[in-house]
């Protein structure tokens, strides 16, 4: 499936390759920064998996294998852009500045959101597949009306690409030429459903049928993802309309901690993709081209470990919310049924500590 149509700036071995339309604009510090982000987010992700295994999280959706796709896209964003994630965009959330502990509130089941979406310009997670694509287009229509030079990015997976909402969002983005970048992480699986059930041809072609550009990028090549995303965002900001980016990548881990991928896919496939590890790829480049020293890599590992420890502590300290808070923000204005419920709960004497 990987052929000419895939934008690549680094081989799986971390060697640069030329591309007719794109070239990397990043210097060594910036590339190292991407490396650092990827290592940290992987480390945080692993920590979260352990936290789940230890009963501290209700669920976790790992991103192993998809770090380049998310960090490449996340770092291409400008501060004023706005992003609409699914439940798996931890790398994007990291780039937007969302504190790691806030990312985990959803998974600790103490919140249905977790962070202030306006502060980080990163919306709350959307669990219902595809809904956020339309929300992103609507937000972008607002950007147009404000005359602002901002781009809006909607994330979704290969599975969600089959949802009516995602497809309608293509219609609208094309019709209104909205500043929307659709970022599809084709990690080749929607839980147990292989990509081939969603489409027989590469997903980025969809965009052409709706009248806007679609492009497939090697999602394990952080430099390529960065450049492709950056250009799409720039175009969106100045009235160039929407782009669909298909980041061709692979979900190395389980769908979530509740999933058992051995039931539906073979080890050999996973092995192949382990050899395309996005972090190793850019590390090779850093070593070969920029002669980055082992110590510098080690520093990142240390930093990542520290962040992971901090995350663990934060999570363990994250209390179960007082049940009475379920009545907060159900509505913006007072509502008699909410008041009635709150009153009933208070009368029942239910409190933060009451439940085992």
């Amino acid at each position, binding site marked *: 499936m990987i052929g000419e149509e895939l934008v690549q700036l680094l081989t799986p071995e971390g060697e640069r390759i030329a591309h007719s339309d794109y070239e990397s604009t990043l210097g060594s510090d910036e590339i190292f920064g991407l490396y650092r982000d990827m290592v940290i987010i992987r480390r945080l992700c692993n920590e979260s998996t352990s936290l789940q295994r230890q009963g501290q999280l209700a669920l976790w959706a790992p991103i192993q294998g998809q770090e380049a796709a998310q960090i490449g896209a996340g770092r291409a964003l400008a501060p004023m852009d706005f992003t*609409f994630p699914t439940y798996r965009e931890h790398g994007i959330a990291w780039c937007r500045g969302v504190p790691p502990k806030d990312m985990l509130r959803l998974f600790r089941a103490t919140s249905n959101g977790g962070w202030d979406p306006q502060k980080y310009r990163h919306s709350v997670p*959307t669990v*219902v597949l595809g809904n956020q694509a*339309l929300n992103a287009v609507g937000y972008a*229509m607002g950007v147009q009306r404000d005359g602002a030079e901002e781009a809006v990015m909607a994330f979704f997976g290969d599975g969600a690409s089959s949802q009516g909402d995602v497809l309608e969002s293509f219609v*609208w983005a094309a019709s209104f030429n909205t500043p929307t970048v659709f970022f599809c992480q084709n990690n080749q699986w929607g839980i147990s459903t292989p990509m081939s059930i969603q489409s027989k041809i590469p997903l980025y072609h969809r965009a052409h049928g709706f009248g806007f550009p679609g492009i497939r990028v090697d999602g394990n090549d952080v430099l390529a993802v960065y450049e492709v995303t950056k250009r799409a965002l720039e175009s969106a900001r100045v009235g160039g309309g929407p782009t669909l980016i298909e980041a061709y990548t692979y979900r190395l881990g389980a769908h979530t901690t509740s999933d058992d991928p051995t039931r539906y896919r073979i080890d050999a496939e996973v092995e192949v993709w382990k050899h395309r590890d996005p972090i190793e790829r850019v590390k090779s480049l850093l070593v070969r081209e920029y002669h980055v020293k082992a110590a510098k890599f080690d520093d990142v590992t240390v930093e990542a470990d520290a962040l992971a420890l901090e995350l663990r502590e934060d999570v363990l300290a994250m209390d179960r919310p007082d049940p009475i808070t379920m009545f907060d923000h*159900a509505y913006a*204005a007072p509502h008699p049924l909410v008041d009635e419920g709150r009153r009933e709960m208070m009368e029942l004497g239910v409190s933060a500590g009451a439940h085992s």
Partner: protein
Amino acid sequence: MTTMTMAKALNEGLRRAMEKNKKVLIMGEDVGKLGGVFRITDGLQKDFGEDRVIDAPLAESAIVGTAVGLAIRGYRTVCEIQFDGFVYPAFDQIVSQVAKLHKRSDGVYTMGLVIRIPFQGGIGAIEHHSESPEAYFAQTAGLRVVSCSTPNDAYWMIQQSIEHDDPIIFCEPKSRYWEKGDVDLESPPQGLFEAAVRREGTDVTVIGYGSSVKTMLRAADTAAVEGTSLEIIDARSIAPLDLDTMARSLEKTGRLVVVQEAPHMASIGSEIVAELSERCFYSLRAPGLRVSGYHVPYPPSRIEEEYRPSVDRILDAVDRVMGAES
């Protein structure tokens, strides 16, 4: 005071809301040049431009889904759903996003948007154009549902809904669009979530909303001739219900009839009966009855008047609650 149709009152109300707040947008199918199939948005695109009165591609999920995004961006969109039966493609966005994003964002997002739905039957239309979907939304925590039954309410309630910070499903009784009434352009008649006693009476409390209110008033006329005094309450707000006003009436009459075009199964009528049976248990002199549409798909419109609650059916229920004494 000026006299106008409900359609015109809605149009004027929308116009005034758009004048007051330039973040107010209108979006829907055919709302622009055509002014909507019912002409509720007539002339608004001409006056406010295509950026504020947006002719949508044909997809209801997208109409609501983009309105959600616009709300996040600080706009207040009035979505027009062309007919009741076409709101269902947007159901997912309404239930999963519109109703829940304020909560999910811990109050950061304001879902100030209005979804206008011409609802109920009575215009001789073909299938899917006469549905009563209000209970689907009333059930859904995070939403509010209101319905107007007079031009004055239409004029004011649409403005109050647009100004309100919670998402509101605004149900318009399409069979009443062309009926005229007085509109007070100076001040609103009452709060958005308050019921109105449309006619005072002493024997039976009759509660309904939307198109049913006029039928109820006609039933009250007939009943009066027969010596029975009906108190007619227009619920106005379907969710939340103004149960205080309803209970006050029931304490007086001791008898309850609820009228709605929707089938009675798990309906607004069921809620009113259940709630008032609880609140007014000791005052109730007869079981609360519901006069509803039947539990069948809305029939071909040549026989819709036998499906919709009629004066006869209301009076029949009134007779039953009057006959049953505890």
